[in-house]
């Protein structure tokens, strides 16, 4: 399984064209192909760079959509399935077949075998490219695993809803292909275990003989064992077909985590690709968190006197720094960087920034010292010194993964870096109630800082959970949303508009301009729908 080598081969397409055996996507020829895939066989055919990027962006967009769907409809499984269905299975909008192709016979049948092959290949290749792109940090890995597993589980559930008789054969075939050690119960065994087994599986309405039952070693069913949702006997867990999804998704999760680590090991093998592949892969991974780049200076300009009233719409990290600045009349480097770039991006011009900092700092030090020690720093941020680079504001990812604050520092992400007690106090002070604060703290405990921040946004603005409709991934994005809400340009109702708009724009942007970062596109398109 020389993962790295595979990629190398993939990239040196021109040298090897015609010499490599193309991988056979055998399942295509089957009349009832299942769309479940654990991606164990690596692709080894030739692919050109353009396709490479197209496929990668496409799969990335699908996963991004999966994440959004869960964020919006996670609380309502039915609605979630509906939305996933419409979003992921619409073929009309894109030249690419959706990754979550529902294998409903008629839709599948109309495809030519070439199209089927392509679909299968893209599914496989896309998964492998994203593995390579997302293997570098634990956060990236987690993002990919979460959303890949959700996609997998959606496909499984979707298959379950099909009335087609063949789904059972497909499933059996799938389990056999992936050598998953699960055995279907015979009718005899089912009757023998009877009611006890049904009770063990938490079947509320007595015996349901129509459903198939399976047995598997209990170690593979630990989720169900934990919740006492399967029947156990002699070390085997007995469960209905529906519950196989937990087993399989755990299986997939473990396997994906393993292959990601392996991909990471082989990453140096594509070192000589530093010009072509590496920047692309890095860009891909970064898009998971960063929406657009906030450079500032586009249209709105603010003055230093507006900062104070505006600060109530700042995210908590920025408010912390702001308060610290007001109280201490000083900021250490980390905070100056984080806050300074944020202010720049919301439209504070250089002269105002200098004046703002000077006013505060000179309450403690004389202005000579300020000019000598700090003014350079401010001008540098605005690209007027040194490299003269116009720095963009820091996204959450950078803030969270960057140097953590030490004593005397006030930068960082409060959900990640702040003591729980302190965080709890400041949230309560914000007027959130205990239940809400508890919810937010629970997210911080499982390292979902983005969710914690999003919830804070919603609760502080009296919106319902998930009302924002997406996750905060950038302090300036938070601020933009906050301003929209303040001005009445963004309501919860807009989710409805978003629902129908987002998927379409996803596929559209994909086909026409695959070099535009799609996530950016996504946010912009949401912003547009906001203005409607």
């Amino acid at each position, binding site marked *: 399984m020389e993962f790295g080598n595979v990629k190398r081969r993939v990239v040196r397409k021109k040298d090897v064209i015609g010499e490599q055996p193309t991988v056979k996507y055998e399942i295509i020829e089957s009349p009832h192909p299942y769309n479940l895939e654990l991606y164990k066989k690596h692709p080894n055919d030739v692919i050109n760079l353009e396709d490479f990027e197209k496929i990668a962006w496409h799969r990335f967009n699908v996963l991004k959509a999966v994440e959004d769907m869960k964020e919006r409809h996670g609380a309502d499984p039915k609605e979630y399935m509906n939305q996933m269905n419409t979003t992921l299975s619409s073929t009309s909008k894109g030249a690419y077949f959706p990754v979550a192709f529902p294998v409903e016979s008629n839709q599948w049948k109309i495809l030519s075998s070439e199209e089927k092959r392509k679909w299968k290949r893209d599914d496989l290749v896309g998964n492998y490219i994203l593995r390579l792109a997302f293997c570098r940090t634990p956060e990236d890995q987690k993002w990919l695993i979460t959303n890949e597993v959700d996609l997998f589980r959606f496909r499984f559930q979707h298959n379950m809803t099909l009335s087609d008789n063949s789904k059972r054969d497909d499933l059996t075939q799938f389990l056999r292909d992936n050598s998953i050690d699960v055995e279907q119960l015979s009718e005899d065994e089912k009757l023998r275990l009877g009611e006890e087994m049904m009770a063990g599986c938490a079947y509320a309405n007595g015996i349901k003989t129509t459903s198939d039952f399976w047995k598997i070693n209990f170690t593979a069913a630990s989720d169900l064992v934990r919740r006492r949702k399967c029947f156990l*006997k002699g070390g085997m867990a007995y469960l209905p077909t529906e519950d196989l999804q937990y087993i399989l998704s755990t299986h997939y999760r473990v396997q994906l985590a393993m*292959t990601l680590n392996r991909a990471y090991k082989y990453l140096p093998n594509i070192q000589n690709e530093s010009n072509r592949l590496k920047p692309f892969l890095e860009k891909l991974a970064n898009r998971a968190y960063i929406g657009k780049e906030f450079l500032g200076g586009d249209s709105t300009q603010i003055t230093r006197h507006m900062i104070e009233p505006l600060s109530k719409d700042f995210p908590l990290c920025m408010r912390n720094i702001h308060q610290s600045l007001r109280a201490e009349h000083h900021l250490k480097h980390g905070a100056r960087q984080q806050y300074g770039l944020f202010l720049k991006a919301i439209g504070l011009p250089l002269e105002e920034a200098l004046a703002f900092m000077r006013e505060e700092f000179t309450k403690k030090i004389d202005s000579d010292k300020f000019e000598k020690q700090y003014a350079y720093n401010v001008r540098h941020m605005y690209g007027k010194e040194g490299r003269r680079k116009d720095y963009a504001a820091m996204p959450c990812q950078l803030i969270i993964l960057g140097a953590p604050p030490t004593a005397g520092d006030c930068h960082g992400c409060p959900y990640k870096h702040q003591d729980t007690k302190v965080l709890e106090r400041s949230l309560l002070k914000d007027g959130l109630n205990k239940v809400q604060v508890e919810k937010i703290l629970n997210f911080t405990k499982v390292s979902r800082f983005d969710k914690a921040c999003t919830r804070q946004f919603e609760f502080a603005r009296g919106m319902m959970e998930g009302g924002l409709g997406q996750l905060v991934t950038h302090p300036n994005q938070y601020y933009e949303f906050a301003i929209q809400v303040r001005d009445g340009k963004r309501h919860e109702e807009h989710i409805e508009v978003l629902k129908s708009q987002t998927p379409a724009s996803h596929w559209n942007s994909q086909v026409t301009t695959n070099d535009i970062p799609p996530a950016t596109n996504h946010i912009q398109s949401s912003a547009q729908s906001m203005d409607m």
Partner: protein
Amino acid sequence: MSASAFEPSNLEAWLREYYRTIFPFKSYTKWLCYGEKPSEKFALREFAFILEGDTHLRYRSFQNEADFEKDLIKMAPHKLDLGAIYSHPPKENKKHSDFKPVEREFVLDIDLTDYGNVRTCCTKATVCAKCWKFIALAVNILDKILEEDFGFVARMWVFSGRRGVHCWIGDVQARQLNNSQRQAVAEYLSLFSGDKMNVNFGGKKVRSQILHPMVNFAYKCALQSELFQSLLFEQQWLSDSRLDFLLQQIEDEEVVGQITKSFKLKDSERWDYLLKKFDEETRVAHNAKTGASIDPPPATCENFLKWFVLYHCYPRLDVNVSTGMNHLLKSPFCVHPATGNIAVPLNPKKIHEFDVTQAPRVDQLLKQLRENGQNSAENRRILGYNHTSLKDYVHNFNMFIMKALANAEEERAKQKDLDIKPPEIDSPLRSRTVN
């Protein structure tokens, strides 16, 4: 055996003597080797010595039995804990970046202090023979569930030295569980979260509730046990003062009235009434035998008796002990420094016969050895325990080791079969060591 109070001032000397003459090194090492060379398992096992003043010496490991014996006698630790088997010898833990636990028995911990709200004979650290019945019943129930549901064969129940028991499961599958699987098993077995039960028995707001077969199984086990009968009356679970608490569980006005009425009777008749009303089997049998027609209880409280029985006697586990592969747990045959009691392996079939107030004690064992073992001085080192009351417990220990080794042998044979086929490296369903 005299029951004079334990005097810990002499502990240091006794410990040294105990480790030198009585500690069953041979069996102990045999256990930890699981039928392989010492370098395969034994040498990778973490031992922790706890010295006087709570000094913990972690990550000790030993090449072989002789090495271990020498050090144990030399250090004479107050407590001996066992940890996991690691990827490298634990004493080299700082040398390897990939040092991590790879295998460990699945362990359970039951402690009487968790029974606070149902134990009326004693409180906190004190224990009497009556209290032990809680433990005995808990072991009876859990031992059966572990066998029936999980198919574990090598189960060892060890007296913790004061007021509880530990269970060590040495099956290969149990040893190879990863942390989340351990947690899953522990949570499956645990019907309590803190003081509250985490099982929905129906009642308030919920109409009827299907109970997991394991819950019904535990209920039946308890109900059939004589231990439960004696606990019921000894701990006064049906005393007048408990009535209010019991009635809180029931919504149905009529049933509340009936139970209140039954409490005018004697304790044993109260119980008879509850059985006939709420236990389906008893009710059906009673109706058939006497021609009476006791109605089944309404759906909202049909599980009331199950709740009652399990709330009072279902094993209360300390889940945290079970979930971590590298969690340290007191070793069998370790001396409890405060009571002098030896952590002896028990026979789960005869666990009710164990007298917790007369447990083997380090000073008494030494005395027995001096009195009985005179003429076999040369054999003392290995068989010292044979001349003391520890003998039976070492027998229990050996029975466990036999089962564990047989299971290990069986799994090795299976593994060989598998190895002939192409290995399935990626499948965590097959290779269970994957984290």
